[in-house]
C-alpha cells in the first residue's frame, strides 16, 4: 500500500475511569485502512469495538480517554483533537457515522430534509438549494423516492430509515464511514437491502468503511479486510479470504466454528466456554487466556503482540504465543470434515 492510508491505529489503548479504577476497553489496538477499503471489526459484546467507533468520531463518553497510542486520519494525528476540531474538520465531511439501526437516530420532529440542510450549513458553505439537490440525489442512490426527503422519520419503515441515515452519512462525501452494527435491528431481508446499497458505494470506490459488527458473515460478504477482537485486544487481522481459510488465533478459528451456516445445518457448532474478563489497568496478559483450551503459562505473563504470520505475503497478523501448535491441535480435535457431503444448499 504505497498510497497514504485513510486511517491508522497505532497501539491505541482506551480506558474508562470507573469507581473500581481504570477499565481498559481497548488495549494496544493497531490496524490500517486503505483508501476505498471496507474493513470489518468483529467481536462479541464488550470487546471494545464500539469504543473504537466512538473514539474515531470524537464521541467517547466523558469518563473515557485515549491513554496511549496514536490515531492518524490521512496521516494527521487526531487522538488529541478537541470537540471543536472534530466538528470543524472531521465530522460528516471527512468521517461520518451510521449508528446502530435502532430507529431513533433521527430527530423525530424535524423533516429529514431539514436535518440535512442543518448539517450542510454547519459543515460547508453549500446553499439551501444545493444541499437539497445533493440530498435528493443521494435518496435515489439508496433507493428511496427523492420526493420523500421532506418526510418525517416516522413515515419510514425501519429499513428505509436506515437507508436515509446512509444517505446522510454519504451527504458530504466523507472519505471514511463508520458503520456500527448498521443492520442489527433489522430483519434479514431489510438487512440485505441495506447492504445492497453499501455494496454500490463500495463499487464506486468513494469512501472507506469500518463495519463494526458481531456478525462475522456480514464481514465475510462485504469487506476486504477483517480484524477479530476479544476483550480489548485484536486477536487476528488480515484479508477476509486469509482469515477464513487460514486463521491462526484460537479465538478467531473458534469463533468461525461457532457461527452457524445455513448451508450446513448438521455441522456441529463450536462452543467457546466462559466469558470475556473485565480488564482493569494495564493488560499484560492475553485476554482470551481463561477461555482458551490451548493456553499456557506464558499467556498469563504478558500480552502477545500482533505479528506477521509467516508463510503469507499479505498483511496477516496474529497475536498469539501458541498460534502454530494451537491450530494443529484444533485441526486434530475436529471431527472429520464431512461438511461438504452434507451440503444442502445446492445453489447455482
Amino acid at each position, binding site marked *: 500500500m504505497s498510497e497514504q492510508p485513510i486511517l491508522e491505529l497505532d497501539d491505541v489503548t482506551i480506558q474508562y475511569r470507573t469507581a473500581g479504577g481504570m477499565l481498559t476497553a481497548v488495549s494496544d489496538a493497531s490496524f490500517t485502512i486503505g483508501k476505498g477499503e471496507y474493513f470489518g471489526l468483529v467481536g462479541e459484546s464488550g470487546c471494545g469495538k464500539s469504543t473504537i467507533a466512538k473514539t474515531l468520531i470524537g464521541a467517547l463518553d466523558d469518563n473515557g480517554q485515549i491513554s496511549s497510542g496514536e490515531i492518524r486520519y490521512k496521516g494527521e494525528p487526531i487522538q488529541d483533537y478537541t470537540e471543536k476540531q472534530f466538528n470543524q474538520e472531521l465530522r460528516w465531511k471527512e468521517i461520518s457515522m451510521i449508528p446502530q439501526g435502532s430507529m431513533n437516530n433521527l430527530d423525530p420532529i424535524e423533516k429529514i430534509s431539514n436535518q440535512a440542510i442543518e448539517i450542510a450549513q454547519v459543515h460547508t458553505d453549500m446553499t439551501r438549494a444545493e444541499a437539497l439537490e445533493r440530498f435528493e440525489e443521494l435518496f435515489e442512490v439508496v433507493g428511496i423516492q427523492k420526493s420523500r426527503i421532506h418526510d418525517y422519520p416516522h413515515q419510514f419503515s425501519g429499513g428505509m430509515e436506515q437507508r436515509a441515515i446512509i444517505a446522510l452519512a454519504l451527504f458530504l462525501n466523507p472519505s471514511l464511514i463508520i458503520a456500527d452494527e448498521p443492520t442489527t435491528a433489522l430483519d*434479514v431481508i431489510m438487512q440485505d*437491502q441495506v447492504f445492497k446499497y453499501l455494496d454500490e458505494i463500495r463499487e464506486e470506490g468513494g469512501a472507506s468503511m469500518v463495519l463494526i459488527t458481531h456478525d*462475522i458473515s456480514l464481514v*465475510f460478504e462485504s469487506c476486504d479486510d477483517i480484524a477479530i477482537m476479544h476483550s480489548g485486544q485484536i486477536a487476528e487481522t488480515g484479508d477476509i479470504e486469509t482469515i477464513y481459510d487460514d486463521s491462526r488465533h484460537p479465538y478467531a478459528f473458534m469463533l468461525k466454528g461457532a457461527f*452457524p451456516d445455513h448451508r450446513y*445445518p448438521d455441522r456441529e457448532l463450536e462452543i467457546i466456554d466462559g*466469558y470475556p474478563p473485565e480488564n482493569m489497568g494495564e493488560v499484560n496478559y492475553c485476554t482470551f487466556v481463561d477461555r482458551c483450551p490451548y493456553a499456557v503459562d506464558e499467556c498469563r505473563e504478558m500480552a502477545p503482540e500482533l505479528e506477521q504470520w509467516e508463510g503469507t505475503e499479505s498483511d496477516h497478523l496474529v497475536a498469539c504465543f501458541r498460534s502454530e501448535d494451537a491450530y494443529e491441535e484444533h485441526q486434530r480435535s475436529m471431527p472429520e470434515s464431512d461438511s461438504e457431503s452434507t451440503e444442502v*444448499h445446492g445453489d447455482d
Partner: protein
Amino acid sequence: MTENEPVLKLENLQKYFTDESLKDRILGRDVSPVRAVDEVTIDLYENESIGVIGESGCGKTTLLRTLMGLYKPTGGEMYYNGEPTSEFSKAEWQKYRRNVQIIFQDPFNSLDPKFTVRDTLKEPLQVHGLDNHEERMHRVLEEVQLNPPEQYIDRYPKQLSGGEKQRVSIARALILEPEVILADEPVSMLDVSTQASILTLLSNLMEEKGLSMFYISHDLSTVSYICDEINVMYLGRVVERSPTKKVLREPKHPYSQALIDAIPVPDPHYNRERTKIEGAALDPVDLGEGCRFRDRCPERMDICDIKPRFVDVDGESIASCHLYYDHESADPAADIDERRLASGSTTSGVEATGKAGDN
C-alpha cells in the same frame, strides 16, 4: 406418537386486535382489525419441536402470547391434550400454566434483578404448591449445567453472564416439569460463542425429558439445531410448513425463498446474490383475502388476489401458494384443505420423512 393426540393443537387460531375508540363505537364506524394471527393451524406432538419463523411483525409473538393464555383468541380453538382451552376453568388454566412453560428472549430483563437464583426458582414451586424445594432446585441447576449448584444458587442476575442467565431462565421453565416449552428466540440476545451451548443444552433436555417445544425465532440458521419442522409465517398467516432441512435446501413459498436467500453466508468464497425483494412488510390491516405476500412477490399473478389454499407440494413441504396447484382441474385430491391439515395426517407424514432424512 402419531397415534396419540397432539399435546397442543391449534385449529384456525385467530387473534385480531381492534383499536376501536368510544367515538367509533358511538358513530357506528367499522374499524378494521389488525390481523396479527390469522387462521393458524398447527399440531404439536409429544417430544416434537416445531419452529415458527418470521420477521418482526409477522405475528409470532402474538401467537406465543396466545399460547401462554395471555391473549384470548378471537377465533378458532386451541386444544391442550384434546381439551378446548376456551372452556377451561380457573383450575384447569393453572394446571395448563404449570405444564406449559416459557423461556423468554431476553435473559437480561426476564430475571428479577433483586431475586437470587434461589428466589427465581422457588417462586414457581410455591405458586404451584410443590415440596422438596432444595432438592428440585439442585437437580434442575445440574440439568442446565450450572455446576456445582451451590456456587450459583445464591447469586443475583448481575453476577451471572448472559449465557448463565439464560440457563437460569431454562431452569425456571423446567423446574415444574412441564410437558411443553414455549421458547421465544432464546438465543438471539446471546453472543455467538454461547449460542451453541444453549442450543445444545435445549435439544438434549428435550430428548431426555420427552418435552415438546414451540420455538419462535427470526433466525433460520440456528433453528435447524432445535426444530424438526418449521412453519414460516408472514403477516399473521403460515405460508409454508416443511421439515427444517428441507426448507433450508428447497424453500417452496416465494417468501420462504426470499427469506433464506437473504441470510448472509459466513464464507468469502461464496457468491451470494443480494435480495431482489423490495420494500417492507405492510401492517396486517385491510389486506383483503388474497395472499399476504403478493405485493412484494416476484412471482405475482392475477390469481393471487384470491386466498391461496394449502397444498402438499412434494410430499414433504406444504405451501400456501397459487404456484403449486392447478386451478383448472378441480381435482380435490390435489388439495389439502385445512381440515385434513388439522387432523394431523399430513403433518405426521411430513415428520416421518423428515426424521428419516436426519439419521
